[in-house]
């Protein structure tokens, strides 16, 4: 028979081994997560209300929310950045609303759906134009327009002078 001291020592060693990264990695690799998920689903459906109340109560404890925020701050920031970039890429409703609301006293609720759709189309066309033209081409175009405007103004001034 194994003595109590020997057993305790063996147990201590085993517990120390369980805390190592090597053991955790091994467990992660061999663990069947689908079974765990099923078990958790069953447990959650059986105790839905209790779990919800426990969670809300837990989150209301002083300092808990702050701790979670601090823990996941980086994650939240990265997620937010990614979401923002996706919104810009796909021209989602929220992004269009944000553009329309910028530098005004309007709120998101004030903007009708029709306006969002039109603005989205306008953005699409502008993006297409920017993607298919080079900055030098755009500069040439703007210069052409400016010269035309100037010529028109000059002719108008000449006509006015003649009249006077």
């Amino acid at each position: 028979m194994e003595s109590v001291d020997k057993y305790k020592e063996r147990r201590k060693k085993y517990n120390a081994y369980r805390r190592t990264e090597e053991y955790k990695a091994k467990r992660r690799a061999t663990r069947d997560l689908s079974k765990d998920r099923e078990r958790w689903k069953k447990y959650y459906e059986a105790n839905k209300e209790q779990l919800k109340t426990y969670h809300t109560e837990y989150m209301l404890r002083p300092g808990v929310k702050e701790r979670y925020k601090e823990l996941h701050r980086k994650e939240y920031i990265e997620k937010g950045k990614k979401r923002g970039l996706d919104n810009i890429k796909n021209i989602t409703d929220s992004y269009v609303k944000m553009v329309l609301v910028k530098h005004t006293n309007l709120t998101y609720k004030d903007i009708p759906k029709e306006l969002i759709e039109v603005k989205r189309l306008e953005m699409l066309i502008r993006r297409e134009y920017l993607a298919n033209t080079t900055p030098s081409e755009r500069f040439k175009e703007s210069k052409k327009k400016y010269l035309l405007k100037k010529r028109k103004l000059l002719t108008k001034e000449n006509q006015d002078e003649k009249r006077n």
Partner: protein
Amino acid sequence: MKNVTELREQLSQVFYELRNNTVKHTDAAELANIAGKMINSAKVQLEYYALRKETPTISFLASEEALLPRKAKNESK
């Protein structure tokens, strides 16, 4: 273009043509620029009413479907 719906149809057509290379990019950009001006004017109108805390139906923003029952009512009168 009297309505937002008409403007949308026009813009979608321009975008479709732009994709098929039947319209010049510069022309399409000009149209988009004009559309942007129209949108901005509608936005200013919205802002004005929001500041006055009023909610009237803006004829430019109201879609045809929303205007139909009104027309029918006016005709019956």
